[in-house]
């Protein structure tokens, strides 16, 4: 006799059911806690329409300064990403279980990476503005630390997943750990490194816009001043410029990824 097909869905256990119920309840409580209101959203539409009206047409009065600020924004992102990626490689080696020289070093490196990753880049920027003063250098430092957290984690995971066969072969030859990393691990993890680094550059470009809002250089401060002075037409120009920069970086990054991997 043919066996009956199994039920379409597994019946959840009491614990799974309770967990799902808790998630749904917390979502309902959160909706209330954030005072989300469809009425307010509808009531705000005329304001949005008025704002968009004042933004159009975008002002071309300050195109020069906006252009320079945009360049500075990208420079911050680029320099910060390059240093961040380079510094992430040795940190990630220490955070790779089978390459780290000692379990204590491994756990320390992993903890440092988690710390760099969990503190938002805006907070790092605030700290560096206090340390090195206003300007793009504070932004660069914030991006470097942010990249240590982002690239450090993904680089370490790529190295842990790298094919162990060639590593065993080089160990059998008598290679030192440094040679093992340089000759077997890095080449195997390189496609992942390139992809992560290019994503980092895209992310840093978007971040560096926001970092300017706390005085860490770039175009963010221009946007803040324009908004504070109700110069919405200038703000529109800046927003369009940011959009163009992010779009160009993303397209270039996608093209490079395709070429290099």
């Amino acid at each position, binding site marked *: 006799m043919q066996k009956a097909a199994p039920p379409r869905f597994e019946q959840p256990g009491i614990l799974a059911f309770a967990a799902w119920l808790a998630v749904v309840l917390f979502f309902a409580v959160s909706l209330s806690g954030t005072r989300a209101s469809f009425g307010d959203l509808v009531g705000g539409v005329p304001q949005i329409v008025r704002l968009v009206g004042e933004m159009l047409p975008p002002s071309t009065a300050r195109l020069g300064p906006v252009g320079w600020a945009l360049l500075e924004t990208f420079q911050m992102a680029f320099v910060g990403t390059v240093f961040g990626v380079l510094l992430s490689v040795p940190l990630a080696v220490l955070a790779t279980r089978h390459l780290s020289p000692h379990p204590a070093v491994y756990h320390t490196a992993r903890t440092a990476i988690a710390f760099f990753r969990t503190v938002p880049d805006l907070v790092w920027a605030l700290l560096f503005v206090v340390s090195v003063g206003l300007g793009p250098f504070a932004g660069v430092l914030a991006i470097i630390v942010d990249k240590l957290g982002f690239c450090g984690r993904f680089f370490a995971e790529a190295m842990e997943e790298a094919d162990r066969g060639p590593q065993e*072969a*080089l160990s059998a*030859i*008598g290679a030192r750990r440094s040679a093992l990393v340089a000759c077997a691990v890095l*080449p195997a993890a390189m496609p992942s490194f390139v992809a992560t680094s290019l994503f980092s550059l895209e992310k840093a470009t978007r971040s560096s816009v926001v970092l300017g809002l706390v005085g860490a250089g770039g175009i963010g401060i221009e946007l803040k001043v324009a908004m504070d002075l109700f110069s919405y037409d200038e703000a529109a120009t800046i927003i369009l410029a940011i959009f163009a920069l992010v779009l160009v970086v993303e397209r270039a990054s996608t093209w490079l990824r395709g070429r290099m991997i």
Partner: protein
Amino acid sequence: MDAEPAPRAGTAAAGADLAVAGVAKRFAATQVLEGVDFTVPAGQAVALIGANGAGKSTLLRCCLRLIEPDAGTIRLLGRDVRALDAGGLRALRAEVGFVFQKHNLVGRLSALSNVLHGALGRAAFGRAWFQSLAPQDLRAEAMQCLERVGLADIATRRADRLSGGQSQRVAIARALMQRPRLMFADEPVASLDPAAGEEVMALFLDLIRRQGLTLLFTSHDLAHAIAFADRVIALRAGRIVLDAPADTLEVAQLRALYD
């Protein structure tokens, strides 16, 4: 089948390139090796046979401490392997070629860079990492090794673009680059089709014989074991159950060990 001592199996450990005594290894609940004893005199080619899980690959790796044995002594090229510190172990490994079943080449590097890696155990920091950074003498030596396996023409081709047979030849060239005194091979042609396997095995053995190297290789191909080895050692469940000169054995006799 009972153990059958071979004429050369009892060679004194003192004159042997490899002397294994009482080696044991356990993985969790599985005893992979138990009381393994044998010696391999210089210049002898020994085939290790046995079913999957018999302990052949583990035994080879224990000899170089790629896997740490739990018990026993291993003397390799006159050195007590288990007593060596990290530096001593690296120096010993540099003198022992190891050819793996899956070639274990670095796929994104050229054939020449992979061969150059054979010098990693003896070259100064960074000099044998990549062919583009290597000194002329090492590059020339690596090219010679590629030439000996008939692949000088594809020196710049990436390893992941080579055929299975070509990959294993490059792996053999890498082992030759070590200037080894002894060679281990773990099922060196198991991943190749029969024709390529035959060809690569013949080439490998020819190079080994010409240099008078000692060889210990594992194989599931019983005809290969008899044809290419001077002596056959069979493992079953981690113990040696046969040790005999190859020319006294027949394939059917060895096949019975797999039942």
